[in-house]
């Protein structure tokens, strides 16, 4: 696996790696035993790129987001690996104030349902001031002015939304304010944990456009966690496919979408409904999403739902191998797909 990885970084030497996750394993302790939510995950996040992590619920993608902030709490535990940021060292080794200073100014987070991610008893402007006070701004009102500009850019009335309580705003507005709350601290990395999941389709596309334009304008490095291949296709430069806490495939989005190497990726792509043509063309993936307690301890974790299952899959877990430059997949199947 490590040999494959070194070739990856070789191939992508041209762009700078801001964050590299190495052999990350996170285990959840339950009464029935310990279950890994992430297993030996390796991931490179390149500067000025939108990297998407896609997976079903239970794939470990939210655990990955939490780990990026060193926020895994019991019953979860990081049992191995590192997450190094180019300027700040291993995130998982940070404690106390150093950790607090990472959260916000270095890694800015936008949460899945922003309506629940804001203090219901405090005006949004005040919560932004709290961020300024927490991160050592002499005059926290600078953040407020910045938030006003951002709000205007996102076509909201700055005075109204910043003096409002969260419950007085629509879901789309709150999500945009969630993005603003992450951006005012000028993070190096923007971490978006399912930023569009709680939104209707129109709001969703508006929010995606905002994310894209801000990303370009501020030259951010963005990590987007999602379960929606449509979102990935729309905004991501690079995509990492996660299944049962393991990386199944990774590569440039265009390459992965055009020539998916892993049967799971293929199934995810097929599940996107098309605007033209019959809805029946969208095919759901058979079987149920991975359940931590049901993941096979040996062999390929996807084999029970895989149509290309071979005898080898039962015993040996496939390692990531290169299909083309920077496009890796973890599958034993080498034949051409019949569809």
């Amino acid at each position, binding site marked *: 696996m490590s040999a494959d990885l070194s070739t990856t970084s070789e191939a992508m030497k041209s762009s700078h790696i801001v964050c590299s996750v190495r052999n990350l394993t996170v285990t959840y302790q339950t009464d029935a035993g310990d279950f890994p939510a992430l297993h030996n995950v390796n991931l490179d996040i390149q500067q000025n790129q939108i990297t998407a992590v896609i997976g079903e619920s239970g794939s470990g993608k939210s655990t990955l987001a939490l780990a990026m902030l060193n926020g895994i709490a019991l019953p979860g535990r990081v049992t191995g690996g590192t997450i190094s940021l180019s300027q700040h060292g291993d995130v998982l080794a940070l404690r106390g104030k150093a950790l607090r200073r990472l*959260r916000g100014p270095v890694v800015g987070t936008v949460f899945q349902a922003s309506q629940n991610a804001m*203090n219901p*008893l405090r005006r949004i402007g005040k919560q932004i001031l709290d961020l300024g006070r927490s991160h050592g701004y002499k005059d926290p009102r600078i953040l407020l002015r910045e938030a006003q500009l951002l709000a205007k850019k996102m076509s909201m009335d700055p005075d109204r939304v910043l003096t409002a309580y969260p*419950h007085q705003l629509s879901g789309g507005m709150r999500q945009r304010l969630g993005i603003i709350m992450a951006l005012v601290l000028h993070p190096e990395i923007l971490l978006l944990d399912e930023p569009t999941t709680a939104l209707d389709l129109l709001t969703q596309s508006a929010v995606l456009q905002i994310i894209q334009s801000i990303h370009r304008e501020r030259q951010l490095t963005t990590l987007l966690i999602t379960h929606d291949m449509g979102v990935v296709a729309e905004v991501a430069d690079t995509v990492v496919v996660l299944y049962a806490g393991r990386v199944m495939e990774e590569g440039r989005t265009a390459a992965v979408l055009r020539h998916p190497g892993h049967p799971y990726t293929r199934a995810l792509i097929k599940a996107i409904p098309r605007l033209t043509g019959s809805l029946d063309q969208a095919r759901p993936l058979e079987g149920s999403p991975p359940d931590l307690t049901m993941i096979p301890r040996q062999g390929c974790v996807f084999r029970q739902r895989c149509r290309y299952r071979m005898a080898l899959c039962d015993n040996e877990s496939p390692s990531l191998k290169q299909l083309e430059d920077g496009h890796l997949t973890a599958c034993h199947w080498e034949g051409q797909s019949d569809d």
Partner: protein
Amino acid sequence: MKGFWIRLVRRLAGGLIMVLAVSSFTFFLVHFMPGNPVQTKLNTLLESGTPPLQAEAQVRSMYGFVPHTPLYVQYFHYIWQILHLNLGQSISYAGVPVLHLLLKAMPWTVIMVLTGLFISFIIGIAAGVVASVNRNSRMGDGLTMLSTFLHGIPQFILALGLAYLFTTVFRVFPFGAPYNAAITPGWSAAFLASLARHAVLPIAAYAISGFGGWALAMRASVSSVLGDDYILAAELRGVTPAIRLRYIARNAILPLFTILTLSVGFMFGGSIFIETIFDYPGLGYMINSALAARDYPLMDGAFLMITLAVIIANIVADLLYTVLDPRIQRI
């Protein structure tokens, strides 16, 4: 703002109806009570040779009605008197207006119960937060156990225990009476010091017996707020522990404010056990002696006042909530 006034007026109207309903209930309760205390009193007066007209006048001023007019006339007369703040005259303190007695007893209760209530509230809130935040540590467990224990001890046992310990075993505090009778009441330092010394034990008894309940309620409330997304989100946005704690406390304390306001209302019932044990001449003490002396007008008056206080407290709680929780304002 318009909504606020409409709400207030609606609540006040509702409160007035409640007060009338409770006073009517009290009226009929007294009227149908076995032995008919009004008739008994009238008979006693007549037997003792009081002229009938004078006896009737005396009974009327005592109960607010006279027995041999029709019931509805008596009832309306009684209500009419209440609306004029005339609560009749006491039996045990012959000839003294009930209202006067209530107003005289009230400051003692307000001093003792209000102080005790706020001390127990503040200590309880702090203990609840600490117990909840450290609920996997020995300190958290200890605080929870202590709270449960104190919450479970009946108030009068606690008060007797304190009285025994600090007035008999260790003679630290004086027992009984609200102040040293040798000192003339007034704004002198000696009198105020005596007042404070005599108030320590009753207040302590009230605070200690109340704090466990607050601590347990706050602990539960904090535990539920700790699981809310915005607390985790604040943490992951790098908010300082102090600000995070403020977010938690502010959200968790919300449901407890309603209970606190209602407790202030129930305060006007005094604390029968503590006031009686420490000979503290507050409302609880008075209700207890009124019960013993079958002083019905005084009882009626005290109950009416409790009703009024609780209803007002309810309205205040309701309005306070709209200030504390912005989500309720727009209803």
